[in-house]
């Protein structure tokens, strides 16, 4: 007879694992990645490869320096650093300055994630933090967007400025269809084609990795706040939500488990805050601020968690009787 295993109940567990979650996120990011490469070509591909490889590499190098065996690192590797790297690439503009995604990825993995204890221990979203480091350090390059080399459906081609920048500065608006497909829209690699992002979001919702309600709340709130800030001009609703990194951030970055409140109520608060902050900061700074909003909300998570604890089953009853 085989050896006896002894452990506390439950003796069966669901097939869910961190690695499966992360692989599902990678799959969900595929449509946006592919559309990014289609739109922006070789520089996009190179940026994505650089970011992913340097993220994964940074994690392995860090673990090896700590004296872990290569095999055990491989066994415990959960693809979360690959997700981080891919997201960093997708929220960067496509160009040949490959040192920028490299620096952003290494910073995100080493400083933001590994120094705090690895997967699950980071205080803020590593990808958002990585992007912000790159953005602050190389503002000119990070803000210099190229339009995709696919012709615009309606010929109001804009080069250099993103739809968000044009919306914020000169009030020109692209057609909703262009914004949805990302055709002719200058922007980050993965953020222009909203359809691809939404497909990824729907995939995640079907696999029950995320609850699609929360990103939708954030997007709706961001649109409404933009409407309010523009003197109740409902015409800005769609352009505001379809511009910049709002949708990408809501679906792939704000939903990051680690830096999310745990309760349903807490998540609602978190996503409302994300949507509102994005719109407010955009309005007053003139930059894309989805990452900043995520970072700020991340720092509030412990507080939100503390304030939104659920009451145990049967709690009300006990309170009544105590009176």
């Amino acid at each position, binding site marked *: *007879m*085989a*050896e*006896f*295993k*002894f*452990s*506390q*109940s*439950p*003796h*069966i*567990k*669901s097939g*869910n*694992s*961190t690695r*499966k*979650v992360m692989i599902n996120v990678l799959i969900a990011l595929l449509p946006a990645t592919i559309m990014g490469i289609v739109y922006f070509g070789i520089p996009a591909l190179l940026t994505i490869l650089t970011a992913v490889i340097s993220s994964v590499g940074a994690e392995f190098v860090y673990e090896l320096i700590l004296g872990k065996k290569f095999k055990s690192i491989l066994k*415990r590797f*959960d693809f*979360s650093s690959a997700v981080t790297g891919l997201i960093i690439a997708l929220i960067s503009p496509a160009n040949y300055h490959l040192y920028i995604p490299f620096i952003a990825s290494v910073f995100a993995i080493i400083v933001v994630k590994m120094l705090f*204890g*690895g*997967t*699950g*221990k980071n205080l803020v979203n590593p990808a958002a933090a990585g992007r912000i480091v790159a953005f602050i350090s190389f503002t000119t390059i990070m803000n210099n967007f190229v339009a995709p080399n696919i012709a615009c459906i309606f010929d109001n081609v804009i080069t250099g400025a993103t739809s968000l920048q044009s919306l914020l500065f000169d009030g020109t608006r692209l057609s909703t269809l262009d914004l949805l497909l990302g055709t002719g829209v200058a922007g980050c690699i993965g953020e222009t084609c909203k359809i691809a992002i939404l497909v990824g979001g729907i995939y995640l919702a079907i696999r029950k990795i995320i609850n699609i309600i929360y990103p939708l709340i954030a997007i709706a709130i961001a649109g409404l706040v933009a409407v309010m800030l523009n003197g109740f001009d409902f015409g800005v609703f769609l352009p505001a939500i379809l511009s910049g990194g709002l949708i990408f951030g809501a679906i792939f970055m704000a939903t990051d*488990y*680690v*830096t*999310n*409140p*745990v*309760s*349903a109520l807490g*998540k609602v608060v978190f996503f409302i805050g994300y949507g509102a902050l994005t719109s407010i900061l955009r309005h007053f700074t003139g930059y894309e601020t989805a990452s900043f909003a995520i970072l700020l909300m991340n720092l509030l998570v412990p507080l939100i*968690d503390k304030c939104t*604890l*659920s*009451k*145990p*089953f*049967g*709690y*009300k*009853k*006990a309170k009544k*009787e105590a009176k």
Partner: protein
Amino acid sequence: MKARKGKYFPFGAHVPGNKELSSGSMIEALPPQEFLTINVCQHIGAPAIPVVEVGDNVKKGQLIAKEGGFVSANVYSPISGEVVDISAKQNATGAMQTHITVKNDFLNEEVFLPNMVEITPSSIIERIRLAGIVGLGGAGFPTAVKLMPKDPVDTLIINGAECEPYLTCDHRLMIEKTDEIYKGIIYLKKALNVDKVIVAIEKNKPDAISLFERFDDLDVVILKKQYPMGSEKHLIYVCTGKKVGLGQLPASVGCVVQNIKTAIAVYNAIELNKPLYEGVLTVSGHGINTPKNLLVPYGASLKTIIEYCGGVVDDSVKYVAGGPMMGKAIINLDVYTKKTDSGLLALIKGEDDDNLPTNCINCGKCVSTCPMRLTPVLMEFYINAKDFKQAEKLGVMNCIECGSCAYNCPAKRALTQSFAYAKAKIKEINAKETAK
């Protein structure tokens, strides 16, 4: 009465049932064993005190250990023969407890309880106490004590949820012994002096539901397939809409919950004068060659039961007494069945969990799963930091250890384990503080 649908309680886990392994096999009796080793502590409360000595001859149904207090239960011999040993042996979880070993003489001499003269609530409760009946759903709380609640009750709920995966013994009993269960329920109803009886059966047992619908005075409730539906507090909520307060007993909302098997034991004790010395056990899991529902005398060794079920396949790695969600892992097979056992599982590699815990990724799955609506992720964080006071504040004492959080955890954290540990630790700390 026509069955009605039960409510849905928020959260909880959806665990694959795996009941088809044994749900089709009729209950059969384990052949007589040469030796039975009977534990004197088969219930919650004080252990029973042996009243026989080595060398004594006992008959089937003879008292061998007398209840050792108010919350305790009598123990009877399932066979006739000679007492050959009274000593401390390991039980399924490794604790040392007194066991009485009886050698079978295969004469099958019986000595049952006397006939009941009159059937009144107090005489029924007295008979239940005498017969050594305890809650057979798993907790093993003496039934007689449960039938004398401090608060007035108006509803008796019979728990036929059997929400634990793999287990099918209650299901088989409901099909094969419907009338006996019904009569047992009527006695329980009389003992409690209540009008309303609810029989709660999970949706995945339609045959049992239709059998109970025949009785006009039973209110049959179809439960959603959800884990932990059989938890007392949740069962009361889905059947009656009442919530039992924290740290309160079901009687505080006028309910008493009894198990299907307890109802049969009550019937046996009153109509057949048979004390509680045998019960039905599901032997299942993918590691068992022929899963069965077995009627076993208490005290049969698990080894003989598994051998009777055709042994185990080679890659079985874990043995569990009870269901896979709340049952206890067994350290060796030289342990003996007792009243509270409802299952014996052999899990094969891949069926049990063999993943080591990784870092918590804060996904909140445990929070959206916890049927008690606690915050397992934060509780575990504080327990790991040895901050038991904070864990208590978060409500760890309300944890019912159902295992839903640990089941769903993608990081495979041993959540239930740390809560069980914290509960014991907090009790210890509080006891020390009150002593001061």
